[in-house]
């Protein structure tokens, strides 16, 4: 079966700095795949390549078997934080992708309304992002990505700027929303428990250059509630991923300390 999203042998260097080395990831239809890695593992570059706003030195990206080289409505993005347009209301932000792709119609508008209800934002259509909490802004971000009805949803550390409690709530919300349509998701995070909690498989990246260390299938029952986090299997998975990246994280911390001093 053709994977929904196929990342094939992506390598990229900036000058002498090798950022990505031979990254290959297949995301199956309806699969939730998480990528975990320490800072400096080339997550951002990989994401920009998949988005089609950065070109790689080698390899290719395919969606449904078709090679992609530029941005398109087949991939929907949820970004780290505050990538909402401050001058647009919740509603105007949500339909941004439809506007760009010339797809605003009665049908897509009705669908977008349903999406806002799905993410729990009905009644907030006329609010501006500055009037919303961090968690609510990320709900808008999610709705905006889903509004173009993409084949693959790509989420780049969407909850990293939220406080710990809000993050838990949003993780739970995301699993609830995901259960409804089971869209194919590529979820990038540095939060190990977040990756294990959400994903069917966790891809662990190493750093300098960014490369795949291991792919860990997560065999936990769905739908998952917060109780899963106390499941011994969950804890084992988290430990395993942590052991895989521990040294890399220590390196990156040491590097940061050197740069700071």
């Amino acid at each position, binding site marked *: 079966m053709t994977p929904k999203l196929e990342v094939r042998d992506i390598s990229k260097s900036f000058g002498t700095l090798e950022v990505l080395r031979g990254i290959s990831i297949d995301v199956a239809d309806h699969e939730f795949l998480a990528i975990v890695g320490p800072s400096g593992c080339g997550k951002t570059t990989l994401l920009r390549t998949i988005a089609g706003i950065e070109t790689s030195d080698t390899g290719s990206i395919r969606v449904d078997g078709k090679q992609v080289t530029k941005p398109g409505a087949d991939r929907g993005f949820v970004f780290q934080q505050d990538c909402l347009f401050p001058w647009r209301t919740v509603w105007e932000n949500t339909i941004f992708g439809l506007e*760009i792709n010339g797809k605003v119609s009665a049908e897509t508008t009705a669908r977008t309304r349903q999406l806002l209800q799905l993410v729990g934002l009905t009644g907030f259509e006329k609010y501006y992002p500055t009037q919303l909490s961090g968690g609510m802004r990320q709900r808008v971000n999610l709705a905006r990505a889903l509004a173009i009805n993409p084949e693959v949803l790509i989420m780049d550390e969407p909850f990293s700027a939220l406080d710990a409690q809000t993050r838990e709530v949003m993780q739970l919300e995301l699993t609830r929303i995901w259960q409804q349509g089971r869209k194919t998701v590529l979820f990038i995070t540095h939060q190990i428990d977040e990756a294990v909690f959400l994903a069917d498989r966790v891809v662990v990246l190493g750093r300098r250059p960014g490369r795949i260390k291991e792919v860990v299938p997560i065999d936990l029952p769905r739908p998952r509630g917060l109780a899963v986090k106390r499941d011994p299997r969950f804890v084992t998975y988290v430990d395993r991923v942590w052991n895989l990246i521990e040294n890399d994280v220590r390196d990156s911390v040491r590097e940061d300390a050197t740069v700071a001093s």
Partner: protein
Amino acid sequence: MADASKPVTADETQADDAARGRLAKGGKRRLSFASAASILGGLLLWELAGRFLVRNSLFLATPTQIVEEIVKLAASGELQLHMWTSGQEFFIGLAIAIVLGIAVGFITASSRLGDRTLGPWVTALYATPTIAISPLIILWTGIGIWSKVIVVVINSIFPMIINTDAGLRATDKHLLDAARCFGASRWQLFWKVSLPAAIPFVLAGIRLAVGRGLVAVVVAELFGARAGLGYLLIQASEVFNMPRLFAAVVILAVTGIVLTWLVGRAERILLPWRFAGDDR
């Protein structure tokens, strides 16, 4: 869905806002009262000083004398003539400065060649007190309204250029990237991201341009004019007519306040997102 994740409803938030609004209103009223008391107190001291301390209308006109003079000027139609002349010079000059300034700012922000060729001129002339060359402009272009328009333009255009340029450059990289990921073309990036992001800067530029333009009109008229508030001012000072001189100053001050207020209103209309949630 867990209860904790249930978002607050719009109604609850609005009720919250209303409560905060009421609190703010009480505080605001007290502050407005303080401003009014300060202004009235100042005027009273001025009046008393003029009547009992200085007592020489060659040096100081009192507020009541100024008001009388303004009424007299308005009755004879002189005031309207001067305001109309200065107003024309100011608004034509300001309009040209805004349009041209935005255009030049757009060029310097979006083209490296444009930045390299126009940039040095903009920087050099912005640092120069261009008001100082207004006599030269009058000499070259005569004492009609266009010489004043030119003086207004060369004084007001620089904040427009610099703010437009800065605004377009300051567009959040993340927002541009997000728009690109949705497949936005260069044209869409400009219209849907850079331009709206730059509008607050452009409006701040207009605020500065208004202030500079007002000074430019008056100064230009001092150096040669047949009518206008600056002309009224210099005529009055030559014959030591203090009430009239002060009347001109007061009218200019009031105009400045009104124009600044208008720009503030325009900001609220054009940038609703900046003021969202404020108590209006």
